[in-house]
């Protein structure tokens, strides 16, 4: 992509603001944009949630299939997380197979959920070594205005907490009779920080993402860190990582309250 002059000017502006401790939308450095969480946004899906984070919109949907377990965990269900950055959501998204950005997003969201041990995969075993439930978590980004990681993790956690398991009888999945809840216990939350110059700020909006030097995301449950991911061409000092880690636990507690279960 040819670099746009407009983005460069905006990036310079955001850097100079950051130096003065200001964000373009006047948020505090540790302040999220307004968040709206709508569980069961797709009522016919087995689980779903829409998250609006500022103008960013991410829809997570859950399908349940029956498949074979992995040979090394014959009595455990499977989680697969996919992500489509559909071109409807941004002028920079292209149709086609997932690119490195959508793959990173899906994998970081997936790790947050998987490593939190939120889902009790053994309860998703139907017949050991033969049939298990496969939880297909699909992220559909509808409007991209920055910080997809946190919006997607929040949507995913909410969708999974609202997911019902279909009845399974004689090799047939009966979706109409989906009454049992997905066995889930933790609410992993991801918090992402941008480093712009020497300033660390939470929940980068689109312009901040374009201007950032480095990015770090932590997925936490109440007391446990379960995933981390650094991105961007810049670097963090040891102290900056420490700050972001503590803030991730603090903001995580706030965001966790938004995971509504219907």
């Amino acid at each position, binding site marked *: 992509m040819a670099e746009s002059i407009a983005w460069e000017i905006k990036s310079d502006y955001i850097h100079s603001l950051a130096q003065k401790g200001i964000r373009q939308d006047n948020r505090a450095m540790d302040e999220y944009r307004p968040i709206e969480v709508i569980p069961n946004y797709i009522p016919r899906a087995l689980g779903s949630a829409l998250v609006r984070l500022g103008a960013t919109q991410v829809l997570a949907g859950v399908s349940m299939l029956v498949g074979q377990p992995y040979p090394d965990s014959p009595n455990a269900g499977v989680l697969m997380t996919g992500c489509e950055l559909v071109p409807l*959501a941004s002028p920079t998204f292209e149709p086609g197979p*997932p690119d490195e950005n959508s793959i990173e997003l899906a994998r970081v969201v997936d790790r947050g959920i998987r490593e939190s041990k939120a889902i009790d995969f053994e309860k998703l075993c139907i017949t050991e070594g033969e049939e298990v439930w496969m939880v297909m978590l699909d992220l559909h980004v509808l409007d991209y205005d920055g910080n997809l990681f946190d919006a997607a993790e929040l949507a995913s956690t909410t969708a999974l907490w609202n997911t019902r398991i279909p009845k399974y009888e004689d090799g047939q999945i009966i979706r109409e009779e989906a009454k049992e809840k997905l066995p889930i216990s933790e609410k992993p939350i991801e918090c992402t920080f941008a480093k712009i110059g020497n300033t660390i700020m939470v929940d980068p909006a689109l312009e901040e993402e374009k201007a950032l030097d480095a990015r770090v995301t932590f997925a936490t449950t109440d007391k446990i860190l379960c995933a981390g991911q650094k991105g961007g061409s810049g670097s963090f000092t040891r102290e900056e990582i420490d700050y972001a880690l503590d803030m991730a636990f603090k903001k995580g507690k706030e965001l966790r309250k938004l995971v509504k279960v219907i």
Partner: protein
Amino acid sequence: MGMKSDIELIKDGKRLDGRGVNDLRPITIKAGVLERADGSCYVEWGGNKVLAAVYGPQECLPKHIASPHRAVLTYRYNMAPFSVEDRKRPGPDRRSIEISKISKEALERVVLLEKFPNTMIKVFVEILQADAGTRCAALTAASVALADAGIPMRDLVTACAAGKIGGEIVLDLGKKEDNFGEADVPVAILPHTKEIVLMQMDGQLTPEEYRKALDLSIDGCTKVYELQKKALRERYVEGVD
């Protein structure tokens, strides 16, 4: 079409969901629902949830498909994996590609492409929840999104299907009617001239039944058009607030 079942799809003129033969399902249309797109529209139509976005006119890429006489219009109909009961694998399948092609051709009739040579106008539609009739809901949404983007058009495009269930010609098939019914005729028209810009048919109809279905779907389009206008009016009012 034509799957076997014991379900009685129509009884005493009433359909499974209580509609009469000439009734549309409930439809809500809202324009201007996305931040990044140049124009957008959200449509709920029965159980369908459809989001349309328009980008452009913009630089035509890849360049070799550009035309010095008119804008190139692209249309991408896509289903979210969770939009249907059996998870849809991501990426375009043959059905989506066919729907995209004929929907694009329908819109080419109304968009004043010749005003924007060498550019590209891109229409994207995402089916978030699929009932029956997604191609009509998608095209209806796309047309509003184009208007919302300020793209000059001869007219809106409005789409609606009619079909045959339990031996009768009815408007706007629902999911079970689509699965177990006898024929489906999705149609799109220009509301002002009643020109037909999209028409498909599958199933089994006598010529007379087909004509009746065609007339009925055109009637349906006229009703849908009112909702499109309303959505754009609301968007305009909201815009000047």
